């Protein structure tokens, strides 16, 4: 460090000196910090590599065709006599349909629960009730699968029949075959209960951060509970709630086992809107249901499905995290 004779010296970054031990230590920590990045890159790399044969052979048709036929497991270029066709549109659309139903149910339910926790429940019971919500969030998905199949479905069939018989004027409640079980509606119900805790916990965190001053000010202006929630609490928390819903959406899109038990998958036809029909699709469950029997080419197709799932859930999750964080940040 030189002494400068100028009245105002130039700033200099102080060289941070660390002992060798500290440098190694920080190196280890940096390595630990980079593991997440490396794993994500590894997942993307291996999935992309394994998916390449199918993506090259089918191109965008893989995402727009409706067929899943393993044939003789050879490509036409390899001299196939019974060529396979892989198109996962029914699965992609099915995933979207199920996830929309589940978020459509879980969003109002979760927000209602969060509002109740913050503004309705007696203070003494709040701790116990949040513990209960967290516990439900920790129930393994396979348990939800059994529950969906054995407990929910018998009731769900009755609800679905009622919807079909009374509201058939609405196209989404029409069915071709009146079985009502293992439908996108049923899968959506199971997922809704699975993701409600996520929406509720996130919304509650956001609600708790609404400045009391704002609420008091709104009340002083004559606001009722309803108008305060409508005009102050919800607008303040909107982006956070949407973020919570997107976290739930990511979970719903990626859920495999619970959906596998309660959804009848149809590979050759897209069920566009008949949510009560026993026919649907799910990208994640497709992988489980086809993996055991798959030929190498079909496995490549499943990897392509996994890659698509990975990218979509990553985007949903990143968006959700950004929204929730920005909402938490504002005071």
């Amino acid at each position, binding site marked *: *460090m030189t002494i*400068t004779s100028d009245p*105002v010296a*130039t*700033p200099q970054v*102080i060289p941070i*000196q660390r002992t060798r031990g500290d440098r190694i230590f920080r190196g280890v920590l940096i390595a630990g910090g980079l593991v997440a990045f490396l794993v994500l890159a590894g997942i993307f790399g291996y999935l992309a590599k394994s998916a390449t044969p199918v993506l090259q052979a089918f191109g965008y048709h893989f995402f727009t065709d409706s067929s899943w036929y393993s044939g003789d497991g050879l490509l036409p270029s390899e001299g196939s006599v019974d060529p396979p066709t892989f198109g996962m549109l029914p699965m992609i659309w099915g995933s979207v349909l199920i996830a929309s139903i589940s978020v459509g149910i879980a969003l109002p339910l979760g927000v209602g629960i969060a509002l109740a926790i913050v503004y309705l429940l007696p203070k003494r019971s709040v701790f116990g009730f949040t513990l209960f919500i967290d516990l439900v969030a920790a129930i393994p998905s396979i348990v939800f699968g059994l529950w969906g199949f054995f407990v929910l479905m018998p009731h769900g069939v009755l609800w679905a029949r009622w919807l079909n018989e009374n509201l058939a004027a609405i196209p989404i409640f029409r069915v071709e075959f009146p079985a009502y079980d293992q439908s996108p509606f049923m899968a959506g119900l199971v997922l809704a209960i699975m993701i409600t805790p996520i929406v509720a916990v996130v919304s509650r965190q956001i609600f708790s951060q609404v400045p009391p001053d704002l609420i008091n000010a709104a009340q002083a202006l004559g606001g009722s509970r309803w108008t305060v929630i409508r005009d102050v609490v919800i607008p303040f928390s909107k982006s956070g709630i949407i973020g919570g819903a997107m976290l739930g959406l990511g979970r719903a899109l990626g859920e495999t086992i619970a959906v596998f038990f309660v959804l009848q998958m149809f590979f050759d036809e897209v069920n566009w809107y008949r949510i009560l029909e026993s026919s649907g699709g799910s990208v994640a469950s497709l992988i489980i249901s086809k993996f055991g029997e798959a030929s190498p080419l079909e496995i490549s197709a499943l990897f392509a499905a996994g890659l698509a799932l990975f990218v979509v859930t990553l985007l949903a999750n990143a968006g959700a995290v950004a929204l929730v964080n920005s909402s938490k940040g504002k005071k």
Partner: protein
Amino acid sequence: MTETLVRDSLENGLVHLEAKDINVWFSSKHVIENISLQFPENSVTALIGPSGCGKSTFIRTLNRMHELIPGAQLSGEVLFNGNNIYGPAVDPISVRLGIGMVFQKPNPFPTMTIRENVLSGLKLSGRRARDEDSIVESCLTRSSLWTEVRDRLDSSAGALSGGQQQRLCIARSLALNPEVLLMDEPCSALDPSSTRRIEATIRELSESMTIVIVTHNMQQAQRVSDQTAFFLAEENQPGFVVEFGPTDSLFSAPNDPRTEDYVNGRFG
């Protein structure tokens, strides 16, 4: 390097620690401008001034704690026993061993006992002490805490009162046998009687070491310090030293009208 610093201390006369033309920036914000102060051996120097004028920032440049803040930049020199502590070959850890620091809020380590807290500096700097018991006793005695805690050295430090905790923090610094002790508003979180005890401790310690203390309390500055520096910062301007001199004359006959206004409580 510390070893040489320490050995040189006697040869260089009275000035023990000296800041020369210190300028500090946080990223591009200039927060301290051209501060030069001298701290003679075994003296107590008080740094006073309104909030946000760079006193705490300045005191942190004296033992290289400042550079731990990301984006911190600096120019100028700090001479400790005549050697620049920002010299290229100087290990910042050895600087901190020679120049100890006590913070605004008492912060004993909550997972350690009183005894372990006193010895924590030795452990954290990777040293082994010959006779731990005598170090504990002498440090606690010098920080006037020994009589109060001698019977419960193995209980948690969290049970002590705020004033006791702060004295424990002083004892913790003393265990490293520093030549200089920097104190950043050590009494601002304490009640008046604890403050008195800390002040008494400071007076005792100053017989054997150089002390620099940041304080908001002008009576405290008058009670404990030999010399005082008055810091000031205009709006959005870097902080600078308005006046620096013996405490008595600075308070009784300030040279600068701003100093006079401040010490008489007209602003700040």
